[in-house]
C-alpha cells in the first residue's frame, strides 16, 4: 500500500528538485493538450450547435455516429493518422510523424466527438425561448448562437473540461504519433508509461500525482472563469 505514500513523497521530491527534464515534460503535455482542446473545441462546439439547431434528414443517425465515435480507440486514431503522415502517406513529406503536431492532430480527432456530443446535449436542453427571444430582438444567427452559448455555457464548459482531461491523460496517441522522444514529444503520460515499463512504479505514480496536481490547477482556473461568467 505504501507505494501510494512513497509516490506522493517522490512527487514532491521531483517537483522540489526543479528538474529541467521534468518541466520540459510538463510543458509539452500542457502545450499539446491545450492545443488539442482548443482546436477540437473550435471545431466541435460550432458543429454541435449546428447539429442541435438544424433539423435535417439523418440527424439522429449523425448523433448516433458521433456517439459511436466516443468509443474511438486511441490505437485506431493513431494508426489512422499514421497512415497519412508516415513517410509513405500522402502527407509524408511534411515530416509530421513523431512531432507534437502529430499528437495534436490525433488528439483532436479523438476528442471532437466528445466536445460535439456534449455540446449537442447541453444545447438541446436549453429553453427554446432563448433562441426565439434573441431572434425577435433582431440578433443574427451568430449573435443568437452567442446567447445560447452563454445560457448553455456550463454544459459546454463541462464538455471542454472533459476533453482536456481526456487528452492530458491520454497515452496511446501520444506514444504512437509522438514517439515519446525525450525532450521533444515526451509527455507526462508517455513518461509514466515508460517508467511503468521500466518497473519504476513509484516514479510512474509520482508523475501521475503531478499530472493530477496540474490538472487540478487548470480546473481551478476553469472554475474561476465559470464563477466570473456567472455575473
Amino acid at each position, binding site marked *: 500500500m505504501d507505494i501510494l505514500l512513497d509516490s506522493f513523497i517522490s512527487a514532491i521530491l521531483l517537483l522540489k528538485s526543479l528538474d529541467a527534464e521534468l518541466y520540459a515534460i510538463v510543458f509539452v503535455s500542457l502545450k499539446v493538450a491545450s492545443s488539442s482542446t482548443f482546436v477540437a473545441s473550435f471545431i466541435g462546439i460550432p458543429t454541435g450547435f449546428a447539429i442541435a439547431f438544424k433539423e435535417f434528414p439523418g440527424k439522429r443517425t449523425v448523433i448516433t455516429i458521433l456517439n459511436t465515435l466516443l468509443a474511438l480507440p486511441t490505437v485506431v486514431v493513431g494508426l489512422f493518422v499514421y497512415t497519412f503522415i508516415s*513517410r509513405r502517406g500522402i502527407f509524408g513529406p511534411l515530416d509530421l*510523424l*513523431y512531432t507534437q503536431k502529430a499528437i495534436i492532430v490525433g488528439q483532436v480527432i479523438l476528442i471532437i466527438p466528445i466536445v460535439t456530443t456534449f455540446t449537442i446535449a447541453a444545447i438541446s436542453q436549453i429553453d427554446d425561448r432563448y433562441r426565439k427571444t434573441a431572434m425577435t430582438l433582431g440578433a443574427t444567427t451568430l449573435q443568437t448562437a452567442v446567447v445560447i452559448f452563454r445560457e448553455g455555457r456550463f454544459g459546454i464548459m463541462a464538455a471542454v473540461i472533459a476533453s482536456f482531461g481526456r487528452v492530458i491523460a491520454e497515452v496511446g496517441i501520444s506514444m504512437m504519433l509522438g*514517439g515519446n*522522444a525525450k525532450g521533444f514529444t515526451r509527455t507526462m503520460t508517455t513518461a509514466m508509461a515508460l517508467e511503468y515499463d*521500466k*518497473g519504476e512504479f513509484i516514479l510512474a505514480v509520482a508523475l501521475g500525482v503531478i499530472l493530477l496536481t496540474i490538472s487540478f490547477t487548470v480546473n481551478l482556473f476553469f472554475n474561476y472563469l465559470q464563477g466570473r461568467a456567472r455575473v
Partner: protein
Amino acid sequence: GADKVITMSTTTSTQASGLLDLLLPEFTKDTGIQVKVFAKGTGAAMRDGMDGNVDLIFVHAKAREEMFISEGYGTKRYAVMHNDFVILGPPNDPAGIKGMKGAAAALKKIANAKAMFISRGDDSGTHTKEQALWVATGLPLVCKTTNIVKKGKKRELVFSHPKGLGEWYISIGQGMGKTITFADEKRGYTLSDRGTYLKYKVGRKYGLDLEVVCEDDELLNNPYSVIPVNPAKYPHVKFDLADRFARWLVSPRGQALIANYKLLGQQLFCPDAIPDAK
C-alpha cells in the same frame, strides 16, 4: 543544428534497461549528432524502418532483421551486443527444473507437468526465441492462422504455441516487465532477458519472488544489432549520420561503454563486435 538529429526506433528493452541513457549523451558529445529514440515493440520498431519513418533501427530478432535487409529496407546489420535469456520460475519450482542447463528440456518438463507458463505472445524478440525453443523441444505445436489483406492481397499470420493454451500456457501479449510481473503474481514460469529480470528482481523496493531456474544455454543467446535504413529506398533518411552512429556503436569506444554498463553491479550486455572491449 537541426540537421544533426537522427531518429531511431528500438525495442523497449534497450531504453528500459537504461543503456541508451548512457550511450546517447556520449555519442552526442563525440559527434554533435543527436539521436531521437522511439521505443516500442520489436515488430512496430521494424515497421518504422520499413515505412521510412526513422533513420535506423536497434532491435533483437535476427531472422527478421536479415529479411529486413534482404528486402532492401536496411543497408547492413551491425552486430552490436548480446545478452542472454533466462527461464524464471517460482521458488517452489513445481516442475522441478532448477539447475537444468538445457532450455528445451526445461520447457518440455514444464509442459509435461502442465505448470503455468507465461508467454509474451507479442512477436517480440523474446517471443520469437521462445517459439524457437518450443520447436526444439520436439513437442507437437498448434498453429493458428489469421487471414488479413495487405496491399489488396490475402496474407496469413501464423501464431504457434504448444498445446494447452489457456490451461497452463498463458499468452499475454505484453512487454517483458509486465510478463515478469504476471508470472510473479501467478507463480508461473516465463522466459525473460536477464537485464529486465535483474531490474525487477533487485532494482526495486519490492523485488520478485521469481528466481532463475535455467540459464547459460547456447540457445538462450540474445543478439542485438543496429541497421541503418536504406537511402536507396528512402532518399530522405539521414543515412550518413545514421551509419556514423552504427559505426560508433561497434567502435572500441562504443563497445567499451557497453561492456562497462552495469546495472546494480551486474554487467547486462556483452559487446559482440569487440568482445573483449574494456
